[in-house]
């Protein structure tokens, strides 16, 4: 039985910012999309010897967080800090704080691995008795604990509203939109900062390698010969306000979302895409839209054999072959817990600039796929986009973003 989902009031994305391997800030990310310039490079992360490509953000090794933020210093929070500095985001949040009061602005962040790299380093630095170094133990709370990112963003922005970190593997920073909508509708805040940050670490590189899901070349979503994903890292944030407060014709808003689980397997998607279908249908119902109202689908499109095939089953069962679809993982890599916000904000760029990114690195479209897979970039007006994110634990989330009419 499908859940009874009621249409929602759109939430305006009043401000947003994004850092991926393709660029720091929305402008550079847009330029890379238009120029079809990938951020993926042969893996040069720390001492990792895996033969794979990664979307590493340059410069994270070259600075540290100082002063009152020093205790938060780790790769994940440095990346969060870098994200917060772009696109005038801090100014927009300061204005919202002025408007509503610091305790009326919520912070809902998503990450899958938080600052685990610190713990990996600390385990490598254990003493002869097996104890962890003091520089680590006193800072675990601010670096690796799953809430660290939420704590850090709240501290950076000087906010005092409700806060939490959602961690549902790859769907984490898509689900933050849903949690923020609930907090707003329940009247527990007037605005919300949503977002996600995930950074490279040994656990995910060696873990995905162990699952034999890493490609030795830059990932090729939807390609006949695709052979796995490329890992990336990213930070993205958005300021959400109910469109009843701030509504401007042409402003980009969250129109709907759908959340579901597969109830099938920890790391294999449901073979018929049942959970994915449920998430997409709920997103359409919340937005009060029909499939034909959607102009473009930003696929999860990780470039693993199974993901792309199962996602195609789900998407084509709803959209047939009439809605253009593509994956942008060829630019950014799979940014895991940051994939939701990354692809939501890429969708915002598509809406604002009237273009669709063709699937990068897809040379020959897998002939068994039934959806309309875009290979080349396309310039056209775009009003509504569906973005899919599916994660381990069979955790799915679909978002619908659109321009307010």
């Amino acid at each position: 039985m499908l859940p009874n989902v009621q249409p929602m009031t759109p939430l305006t994305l009043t401000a947003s910012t994004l850092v991926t391997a393709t660029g720091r800030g929305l402008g550079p990310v847009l330029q890379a999309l238009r120029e079809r310039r990938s951020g993926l490079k042969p893996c040069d992360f720390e001492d990792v010897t895996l033969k794979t490509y990664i979307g590493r953000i340059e410069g994270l090794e070259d600075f540290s967080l100082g002063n009152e933020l020093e205790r938060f210093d780790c790769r994940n929070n440095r990346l969060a800090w870098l994200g917060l500095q772009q696109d005038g985001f801090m100014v927009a949040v300061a204005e919202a704080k002025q408007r509503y009061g610091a305790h009326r602005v919520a912070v809902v962040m998503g990450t899958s691995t938080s600052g685990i790299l610190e713990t990996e380093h600390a385990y490598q630095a254990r003493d002869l008795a097996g104890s962890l170094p003091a520089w680590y133990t006193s800072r675990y709370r601010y670096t690796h604990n799953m809430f660290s990112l939420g704590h850090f963003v709240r501290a950076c922005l000087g906010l005092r509203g409700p806060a939490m970190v959602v961690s549902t593997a790859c769907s984490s920073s898509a689900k933050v939109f849903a949690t923020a909508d609930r907090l707003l509708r329940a009247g527990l805040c007037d605005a919300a900062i949503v977002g996600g940050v995930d950074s490279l670490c040994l656990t995910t590189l060696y873990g995905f390698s162990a699952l034999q899901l890493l490609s030795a070349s830059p990932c090729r979503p939807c390609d006949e010969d695709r052979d796995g994903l490329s890992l990336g890292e990213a930070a993205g944030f958005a300021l959400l306000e109910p469109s009843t407060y701030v509504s401007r014709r042409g402003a980009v808003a969250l129109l709907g979302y759908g959340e579901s689980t597969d109830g099938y397997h920890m790391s294999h998607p449901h073979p018929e895409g049942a959970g994915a279908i449920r998430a997409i249908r709920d997103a359409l119902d919340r937005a009060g839209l029909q499939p034909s109202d959607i102009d473009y689908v930003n696929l999860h499109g990780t470039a693993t054999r199974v993901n792309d095939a199962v996602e195609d089953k789900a998407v084509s069962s709803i959209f047939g072959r009439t809605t253009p679809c593509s994956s942008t993982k060829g630019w950014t890599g799979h940014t895991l817990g940051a994939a939701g916000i990354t692809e939501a904000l890429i969708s915002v760029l598509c809406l604002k600039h009237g273009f669709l990114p063709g699937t990068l690195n897809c040379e020959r479209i897998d002939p068994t796929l039934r959806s309309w897979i875009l290979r080349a970039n396309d310039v056209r007006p775009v009003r509504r986009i569906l973005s899919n994110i599916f994660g381990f634990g069979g955790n799915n989330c679909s978002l619908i973003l659109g321009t307010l009419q």
Partner: protein
Amino acid sequence: MKVGIQGIGLLAAGLEGWCASRAVLAGTEPFGPVAVPDPEAALLPSNERRRSSDCVRWALHVAQEAIAQSGLDPREVPTVFASSGGETGVLDTLCRTQAMPERVVSPTLFHQSVHNTASGYWGIATTCQQSSTALSCYDDSFAAGLLEAITFVCVEQRPVLLVAYDLAVPAPLSEARPIAIGFAVALVLVPPSDSSLASMYLRLEEAHQDEPTGLVDPALEQVRQNNPAARSLPLLSAIAAGRSQSIRLSLLDSQQLVLDLDP
């Protein structure tokens, strides 16, 4: 916001199951912590149970107890899983592996390392395909989970299963996070109805001069302070005693969740 509580699951040393623990929680029997046997988590298929983590078995065990009491079909109930550190035992093993010259990671352990592992296994065990959120808010993870679950119930007008758990953190990670005892609790929260065990109003207040609600029994209070999931104890104690009480849970440094319990 008002919700009903229609089922409770509980597991900790000296608190083995909600029904068995009511007298202790109500203060009419003494609290005597004894080692907890490995939870049954009977819902898990035996092959999954064998390779599942302690977190998964504890979380599923209390979830099953709560959902059975509620009489609801688990396939119809969205879930919220709240834990400060999640799969700390699995993370300890993975970080040990990363410190070895050959980083040979077990693929099974890797997919069990995510914060939503218990959520995923609950879905596998029940074939539930509803929304499931896994979250953290450090020491206030139970309060944050309650916030997510109650807003879900009120906004969507549907029952939600909340499961909060943190297990003892293994050495050497325990030097950074000294959680010494395991604790898991599950609540089935529903739109207000007559069939509930209790109902409560939730409101969010700015940080208050009143301290978060504690417990009278010093040994139970120690459990509450040691384990983030055990921050649920004042609520459980009031329900067990059938007390009308306002319970304050801290939510970060700036806010408190106030639960006005109406048994």
